[in-house]
């Protein structure tokens, strides 16, 4: 299991468009991908659950990957989040 802390840069937070891109990307890995935020854990492969986390601008999340391709998943997903999630 590997993890990394990331600050959300999108001024609108984790809203529909970026969340759906992130979920789609996360679904492409064999590892499980979770977002820990505000004391709770959310499945990053679900856009609905990501949105229910209500992650706002400047919040810090912990991205946790666990499985055969966990290193690759963590590196690529965290880079995607840090680069603004395609917004």
């Amino acid at each position: 299991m590997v993890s990394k802390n990331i600050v959300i840069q999108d001024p609108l937070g984790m809203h529909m468009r970026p969340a759906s891109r992130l979920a789609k990307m996360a679904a492409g890995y064999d590892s499980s991908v979770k977002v820990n935020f505000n004391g709770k854990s959310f499945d990053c492969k679900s856009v609905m659950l990501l949105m229910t986390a209500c992650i706002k601008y400047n919040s810090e999340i912990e991205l946790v990957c666990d499985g055969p391709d966990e290193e690759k998943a963590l590196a690529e997903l965290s880079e995607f989040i840090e680069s603004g999630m395609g917004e």
Partner: protein
Amino acid sequence: MYKGIAASRGIGIGSICRIVEQDLSFEAKLISDTAAEKDRFQKAIDDFVEETFAMAEDVRKNIGPQEADILMGHAIMIQDPAMSGEMFNMIDAGQCAEAALTAVCDMFHGMFSAMDDEMMRQRASDIADVKVCILKKLLGIQDIEISKLPAGTVLVCKDLTPSMTSQIVKENVVGIITEIGGVTSHSAILARALEIPAVLSVPGIVDLVEDKDTAIVDGTAGDVFINPEGDVLSKYIIKREEFIKKQAELRKFIGKETLTADGDKLEIYCNIGTPKDAKKAMECDGEGVGLFRTEFLFMDNTHLPTEDEQFEAYKEALQTMEGKNVIIRTLDIGGDKDIPYMDFEKEDNPFLGFRAVRYCLANPDMYKTQLRAIVRASAFGSAKIMVPLVTNVEEVRKVKKLVEEIKADLRKEGIAFDEGIEVGCMMETAASTMIADLLAKEADFFSIGTNDLTGYTMGVDRGNAKVAYLYSAFEPAVLRSIKRIIECGKAEGIPVGMCGEAAADPLMIPLLMSFGLDEYSVNPVLVLTARCIISKWTKAEADALAEKVLAMSTQEEIVAALKAAAKE
């Protein structure tokens, strides 16, 4: 007879088609053949996703990318593992598809509704939409296809949604009646654009009528008759003919100058909201554009419009208008508008807050982008810059300074523009009325925005039914403001126009003529009406009427006197 709000003029007589909210109740039964139930559910989802994608493409072309993204979001939501995935699990456990759909959607609806983020709360209504659409598929409920309604249909519905309106075939729908909506509602604007008579806000009308009932829709008076007696019907058939004849009479004014009965020349301009509307302004014989609202560039967008995007839009309007004046109003929004990428804070009182020129001057980079796009576009026609919500002289000076900076840059870069581009004030606050004499020394022109001028002068929110009676441009306070603004403009020799609804009001026009208004900017469909009314008044007659009503002290007296003097 039922009374409603007269939202789109004309008389429509036809056969009713009701668009009813359907019964979506179902029996939650336990399923033994879960595989077949999952197939049934998968098919409903597939159909929904396919239709949603097709609709989104349509919307992207005809309405805008933001609205299309909302629809695409619906398809993404239902395909999410936490949505359909969870629903399939519940079907595996023996629940029927309808029950599984409802349970999961309602759970997410509850979670989103409870969030403290407005944008996220809106997702709750998306989930409700998705639920209803898929339930209809599961229950085999067909929506009425509005695009296939026969000729002579009067549409009766609770509210006209944009997706419904986009399907209306203008030749087949002769009237619209709804239970909600006002003159400025989305449905009213669309009905007027389609030139279909419409009466809105008729309480409970959907349940009061049956399909195939005969209806008369008087969109001029706001009256609705269902299955009328023979004499009423024949009266309205005559009225409809008269209206059509009147429209034909107005056509005689096409291509003519706007002249008073004395032969003095005035001008009728148009209010437009998109570059495409400029075509409409030309078709309706407008002599220019007195108000080009630029909000569409910002609201129907997913990002701050770039200089080039704006430049193309302004250029398109200017080229369409073929050298006629086009007065472009710079961005006029504030905290009442929810534009995700523009960080408006929620305000207790957005109409008295950080908006329009106040917001623009505080965000000079954004504002200069817009001004530069307008100045560049001025090479392609006669563009003028109008500044909204002016309350002091400094604001005008600051905008003019920005324009001068932009001109200097463009000169250096060798980019063409109109050196004489004018900067004018939109006169719509009580403050601008009081300092109209000072502003007239700074501005190149005035344009009176009577809608906001009435609101700000009377201190009235037009949307608040309890005080709406105070919202009238015929209140002595508003009439005096209009008179003062025109006189102050004239004293400095600058042109004065009006771009509010009052400019097309047959009762108001003689007063404006008397006060000396030069340019009347109206909805394109009212150009000929306004030109026809102006042709009937001499200056001396208008002056006599104005003198009489300005001596009166109440709105009621004034309106009564103007009605008595009106020339049909």
